[in-house]
């Protein structure tokens, strides 16, 4: 028996899981349209690669990954692209984002897939590319591109943790997935293990899911998987948090800002392992996922749902009940309230809860904190939530950071137990966003200052260069004059015929000098003009204006530099000849 390492704190809210885990996974009906956001993952938005009116096939890439951290987006079924525009997405802000609207044609016609019979023969780079092109991201909620997490880097990875804990109330999608598709999850885990060169695979499942545990254990035996262990972990929220599960299974604590791989552990959701297998073995990109539909609905159940399925069309299949006041995506502890029922299901949608006043009574008015420290008792990050609240409330952001604000995983356990009904997590989110905003503006200001200083330097240097040039010329002129004066005149006695030139002689004798005078006059004139047309309001520019000016100056400088260097090249070339 493996020794477990329970983490500090945690809570035991009513699970409400029995509502939705009684029936097998059903295939959700094909919706009338699919609204597919191009930004469903951590990192850069995918770039649309289709046009309005174009017919696409199931599994065809419609959004290509862009940049280092990004993931592909695919057509979940065959049909016609109806629109590529800004629409509401599954984000509490309700701020629209770029989405592709696809009208299914009902044929569900696949694009040519590239199955891989023996993935072990493929290079690791190829496998990672396949995953990236298949749009596989973490399905536990974070939606981080999986290929990015499947590098061994320089640290040796000992343990691959598969997260089947599913600690949030109401959600049962991983439970059902493990019950029904255990073998494929384990196959996916083997690919992950190979990519990470990990020694062992530990699969953590909360002990309130005995069916899933036995299904997974049976699959381990059937598949003859070695060094793969299915471990029942205590049911306590947030036991399914990656940091918490890693701690429970291995005793290793991954501090904030530290990568678990540096400590020899990598963690994936069981759903991600399943999708990995489908992507590699069958060449099926991530176009659907299992979504628990529960709460205030007639027939709560899990559905294999195409990405982009509008939430209202999905919920309609379970029989809506009166009294629904809104929809929550995710669980009641960390989920978000959807801005509209029309948004599409995304890769991170593990659960849709129809909310009613009965299930989720409106929050009571908050009272002052009485420092009862119930929040301290439940905080899995071992923070002092009451102190963080105090600092966040008074905008004492430095102090909040000193008290480890950024170690907060926003699990909501503190808010759950607070007898004063203080929405603590919201205070922490607020404080974090304030700090981020401050850092961004500080960076911008620093950059502007640097540009300004550079410009001042450059002006100074140019002035100096001009002065030097002038001095050099003057010196050269003087020397020339001196030389001429000392040299014997070639024709000391001017002939009569040349007499006419005598009067002009002094002028002709020193053409350089005349030039000097003229140049000086021109410079003076230019200077005068400059002072006349000099803008008078340059003293009080806003930082933004200054930044803009500095930027323009920098650009000019660059052009000048380029011009100079090309000129240099030119002369160099000539010299070579």
């Amino acid at each position, binding site marked *: 028996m493996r020794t477990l390492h329970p983490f*500090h704190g945690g809570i035991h*809210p009513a699970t409400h899981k029995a509502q939705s885990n009684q029936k097998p996974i059903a295939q959700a009906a094909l919706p009338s349209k699919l609204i597919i956001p191009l930004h469903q993952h951590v990192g850069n938005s995918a770039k649309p690669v289709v046009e309005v009116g174009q017919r696409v096939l199931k599994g065809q890439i419609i959004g290509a990954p862009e940049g280092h951290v990004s993931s592909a987006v695919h057509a979940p079924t065959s049909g016609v692209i109806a629109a590529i525009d800004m629409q509401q997405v599954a984000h*509490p802000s309700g701020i629209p984002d770029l989405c592709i609207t696809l009208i299914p044609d009902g044929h569900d016609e696949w694009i040519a897939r590239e199955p891989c019979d023996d993935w072990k023969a493929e290079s690791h780079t190829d496998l990672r590319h396949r995953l990236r092109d298949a749009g596989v991201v973490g399905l536990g909620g974070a939606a981080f591109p999986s290929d990015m997490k499947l590098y061994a880097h320089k640290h040796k990875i000992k343990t691959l943790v598969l997260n089947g804990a599913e600690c949030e*109330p109401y959600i049962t999608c991983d439970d059902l997935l493990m019950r029904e598709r255990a073998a494929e999850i384990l196959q996916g885990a083997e690919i992950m293990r190979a990519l990470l060169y990990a020694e062992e695979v530990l699969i953590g499942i909360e002990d309130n899911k005995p069916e899933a545990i036995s299904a997974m254990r049976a699959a381990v035996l059937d598949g003859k998987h070695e060094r793969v262990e299915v471990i029942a972990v205590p049911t306590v929220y947030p036991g399914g948090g990656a*940091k918490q599960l890693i*701690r429970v299974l291995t*005793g*290793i*604590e*991954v*501090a*904030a800002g*530290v990568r678990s791989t540096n400590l020899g552990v990598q963690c994936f959701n069981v759903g991600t392992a399943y999708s990995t297998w489908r992507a590699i073995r069958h060449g099926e990109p991530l176009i659907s996922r299992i979504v628990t539909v529960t709460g205030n609905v007639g027939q709560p159940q899990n559905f294999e749902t195409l990405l982009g399925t509008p939430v209202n069309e999905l919920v309609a299949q379970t029989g809506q009940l009166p009294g629904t*006041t*809104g929809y*929550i995506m*995710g669980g*009641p*502890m*960390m*989920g*978000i*309230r959807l801005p509209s029922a029309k948004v599409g299901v995304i890769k991170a949608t593990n659960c849709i809860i129809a*909310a009613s*006043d009965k299930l*989720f009574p*409106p*929050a*009571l*008015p908050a*009272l*002052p*904190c*009485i*420092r*009862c*420290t*119930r929040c*301290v008792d439940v905080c*899995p*990050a*071992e*923070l*002092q939530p*009451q*102190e963080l609240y105090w600092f966040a409330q008074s905008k004492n952001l430095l102090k909040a950071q000193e*008290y*480890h604000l950024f*170690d907060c995983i926003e699990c*909501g356990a503190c*808010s*759950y*137990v607070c*007898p*004063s*009904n203080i*929405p603590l*997590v*919201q205070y922490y*989110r607020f404080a974090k966003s304030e700090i981020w905003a401050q850092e961004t503006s500080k960076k911008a200001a620093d950059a502007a200052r640097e540009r300004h200083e550079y410009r001042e330097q450059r002006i100074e240097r140019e002035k100096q260069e001009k002065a030097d040039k002038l001095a050099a010329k003057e010196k050269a002129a003087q020397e020339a004059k001196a030389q001429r004066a000392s040299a014997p005149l070639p024709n000391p006695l001017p002939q009569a015929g040349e007499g006419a030139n005598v009067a002009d002689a002094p002028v002709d004798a020193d053409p350089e000098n005349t030039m000097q005078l003229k140049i000086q006059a021109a410079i003076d004139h230019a200077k005068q003009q400059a002072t006349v047309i000099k803008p008078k309001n340059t003293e009080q520019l806003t930082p933004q204006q200054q930044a803009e000016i500095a930027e323009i100056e920098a650009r000019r400088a660059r052009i000048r530099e380029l011009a100079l260097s090309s000129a240099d090249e030119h002369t160099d070339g000539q010299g070579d000849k």
Partner: protein
Amino acid sequence: MPGFFSPFITKPDSVSQIMLKVLLALIPGIALYVWYFGPAILVSITLASLTALATEALMLRLRNRPIAPFLKDNSALLTGWLLALSIPPLAPWWLVVVGTAFAISVSKHLYGGLGNNPFNPAMIGYAVLIISFPVQMTQWLSPHGLGSVELGFIEQLNYIFLGVFPEGIKLDALTMATPLDTLKTQLHLDGHVGEILAMPIYGRLAGHGSEMVAAGFLFGGLYLLATRIISWHIPVVYLGTLFAVAGLFHLLDPAHYVEPLFHWFSGAAMIGAFFILTDPITSPTTHRGKLIFAFGAGLLTYLIRAFGGFPDGMAFATLLMNICVPLIDAYTQPKVFGKKEQKP
């Protein structure tokens, strides 16, 4: 409509329920109080409750705060009860009213109301009264069966509100010094602990009657521990320190230093350990901080009792340690997840 941001569920628990449970936990002690000293204490508690609620409402109004939610939080009631239990039951009515009104208005609301007061309001009320009205504050009722005369309930009411006694009875005949006070005075008169404790006002462990009231508070305190309203840190370390220090002195000189159990069951030690020092608002939030706080309070209580000018040290020990709370909290912050020494 669920709230805008997660979590959307909360545990059904509230400040008013917590305070209510603390009030309930006081009832065994109060019942024994009535049994041994008569019903006058119920009059003080009622007076204190009414004054506390009225002052709370007035202050909330002056501060433009919503009145109903705060009146319902039961915190003002708790302050009133704790203060009433620290005042002699036969004290004139205005003593209770002045103390409670001061506790609620000055030491609670002038500092920002619920959750913001650095000092325990009941103990501030007590300190103000014992300094301003030392005579009235030390005339404690004799326990049932010990006084030369005893008043009926109506006669007690008459005295509390009108200041009149039945013909031929004086206050002195009804009251006496507390067991702690008597001990102190007698020791000053070169008495020995053994002789002093043989006096009729002493019972098995400490004062006759008052030791049972203390036992009632201990019982209520255990209920608070069992329901996790309070944690073990403060009561255990406070009583432990008091016991250890008293025990040390008792071992060195049993004739002049009374045994530790006497200290446990005398004065405000029990109610203080479970109901006053554990006030979350005025005690540290970290576990280590609670240990330091309780240790300091235990030590100070003993020092004031044994060597100070006041008969009991609980109130001043509490207030002195209350001052240290922000400092204690700042220096006892525990290591957070992932930032501890990794175990080998």
